[in-house]
């Protein structure tokens, strides 16, 4: 029975269909959600210097009258890297939620956390680097 099914063309084509669907989805996510061309299975590696590890993330804690940059700890490196690679609301909110658990030096809890994902671009002639924001999101913290 399995042999019969697998001999059919449609089953034979599953890997090819998977590759095509994943690569087209990657194109859509890169175009619409700032996914790094290196990520997502669209074969965009080695096509641009905008790789996830070349992006960087800034996080700011916002409380009344105070905006303080949060240093992203090592144990959140993977979460931050995912947010850098694909800065969707889901990944940015997940990072903000983790950062909100870090005790803050200010009195009172923070109202929100801003997450910014930056990428570096280069001047074509002199390779002078410049940074631009891929996505920025302010995540309100519950209970504030």
């Amino acid at each position, binding site marked *: 029975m399995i042999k019969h*099914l697998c001999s059919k063309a449609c089953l034979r084509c599953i890997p*090819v269909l998977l590759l095509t669907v994943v690569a087209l989805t990657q*194109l859509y996510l890169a175009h619409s959600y700032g996914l790094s061309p290196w990520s997502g299975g669209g074969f*965009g590696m080695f096509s641009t210097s905008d790789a996830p590890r070349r992006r960087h993330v800034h996080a700011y804690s916002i409380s009344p009258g105070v905006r303080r940059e949060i240093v992203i700890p090592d144990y959140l490196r993977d979460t931050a890297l995912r947010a850098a690679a694909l800065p969707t609301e889901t990944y940015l909110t997940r990072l903000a939620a983790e950062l909100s658990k870090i005790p803050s030096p200010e009195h009172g809890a923070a109202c929100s956390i801003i997450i910014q994902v930056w990428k570096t671009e280069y001047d074509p002639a002199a*390779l002078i*680097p410049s940074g631009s924001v891929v996505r920025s999101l302010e995540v309100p913290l519950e209970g504030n």
Partner: protein
Amino acid sequence: MNIVDLSLRLTLLDMVLRPVGDRTVRPLTLAFAALGLLIPGQLRSKFIWLPLAFLTGLRVFLDWPLPDNHAYLLFYWCLAVTIALFSRDSERCLAFNGKTLIGLAFAFALLWKAFLSGDFMDGRFFSITMLTDPRFEAFTGSVLSLDDYEMDSLTLFVEQHIDGELPARGLDIPILPSRLHLVSEILTYWTVLIEGAVAILFLIPSMAAVSRLRDVSLILFCVTTYSVATVEGFGWLLIAMGVSQSGERSKSIRYLYVAAFLLILVYSYLPMFR
């Protein structure tokens, strides 16, 4: 050796030499790949390839969206092998998937490089990569002939953390070596040419004349690309997939594929290529 057996053996060897996945998946993929290679009669076993397809797919799923392209292609290939082993005509099924997966992977790679990326065709990508990517270190050192101080100052300049623009005044911009631009342009045009050739030759219908060119283009891609970029696992996977569609009659092409596999292994151990 039959091309299906050779293709499967090279795939398993790839997974043993460069095991994939994190701490959970890696020992299992390594174990199944080693069992398939070492235990007589297990090379075509569904009990080896079904778990390998599952594990390589699990690795992509768990790491999404971060895995390298190589991880996705390995999953599709293990899945193709599994389906082929259940099929009545394993050889034809595997050849179809080997040929089409390579063609599509190169077509999407070409689409990104030649049309969608804003910094590939003008040579910027290779200039930056040669200065910052450790996988290109040996190549960059040998073609640019820079001393350590010059190399470090260029690397630090392009790798500096920038939010916004650098100040226009008082900026100490290092002078780029003239050869950097030339080498970047050569790499850019060669990459587009060879990847375009592989994509077209693997996606057009099979004909005897095209078939030979197809294998030669893939072998040429592997032996040139992986001498510069030390990403052996990807090179070995492409060779294993290439073998599957090379046809039973052409023994010389099979030997060339095996020689290319060994050459990439040599690249990975020689200091001048590392």
